[in-house]
């Protein structure tokens, strides 16, 4: 059914959907890369920096692109203009929860990581970067579930 709907999707929906999906792919790629580099850094300062900068320079632009695309396609598909009494399908709030709630967690992750990098430069421990790693893994898991929900469209 989902695929059948995709066949009849109006052309004007395609570009916003492309922006949304491309952003989400870059976000997931950035999180996977940043988390992997942080996980295998084993205290190496250069690797810890690279892991953090990957989150900041790859995953964050991906998040912004994904979120802009999400709002754009949401509007194009008319979800912002539903008649009263008509509920949104289950997959849509899942997307909102992980995009907006996840966005706040991602922001906290980046702030903690930024402070962690400053502490690292000052010769202090890498504890905050461990927190950054854990939050990145949690975000990655949340976004994998979101991709499943947005593509399988349960409910």
């Amino acid at each position, binding site marked *: *059914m989902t695929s059948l709907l995709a066949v009849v999707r109006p052309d004007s929906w395609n570009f916003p959907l492309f922006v949304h999906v*491309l952003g989400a*792919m870059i976000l*997931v790629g950035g999180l*996977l890369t940043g988390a992997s580099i942080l996980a295998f850094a084993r205290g190496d300062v250069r690797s810890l920096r690279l892991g953090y900068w990957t989150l900041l320079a790859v995953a964050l632009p991906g998040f912004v692109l994904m979120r802009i695309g999400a709002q754009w396609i949401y509007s194009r598909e008319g979800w912002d203009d539903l008649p009263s009494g008509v509920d949104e399908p289950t997959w849509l709030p899942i997307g909102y929860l992980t995009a907006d709630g996840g966005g706040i967690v991602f922001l906290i992750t980046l702030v903690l990581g930024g402070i962690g990098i400053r502490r690292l430069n000052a010769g202090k421990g890498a504890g905050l970067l461990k927190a950054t790693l854990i939050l990145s893994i949690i975000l990655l898991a949340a976004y994998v579930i979101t991709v499943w929900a947005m593509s399988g469209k349960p409910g």
Partner: protein
Amino acid sequence: MSFDDWILALHVLSAFAYVAGMVLFWVLIVAVRRTDTPEGTIRMGPVVKVGTIATAIGAVGTIVLGIWLAFSVGGYDIWDGWIIAAIVLWAIAGGIGGRTGKQYTAGMDKARELEAAGQPGPNAELLAINRTQRGVVLHAVASLAILLILVDMIWKPGA
């Protein structure tokens, strides 16, 4: 969710894994360009494995589940132009991806060789191998092929 909906969700998740692997290799390609020591090069090994697993899952998942969907879902046929285009682009991306891997494996091999020879310091030859221009071009072409698959999957020209 129907069985086909599950297959579609796993197909899309595979595509995400494939792109995530490509993104990971882009970051490593940039990072390795400033790496001239065996230790620094070898340190990237476990991260390379993550990327290899992600691209392998992504490549196999997208093609197997994609072909399943082409046969199973009404309205699509395996000989549709946009599906054939996707399969051709998938093959191009996979073939070039394999060649890219060989380019960067050479750096890892050289780093192990230097470490075994007791030369842990900066090495100009290792840096030159890590800065392979051919590797960058090949990865760019493979990335472009995957981007075109995404465009093809969304616009479905001719469908």
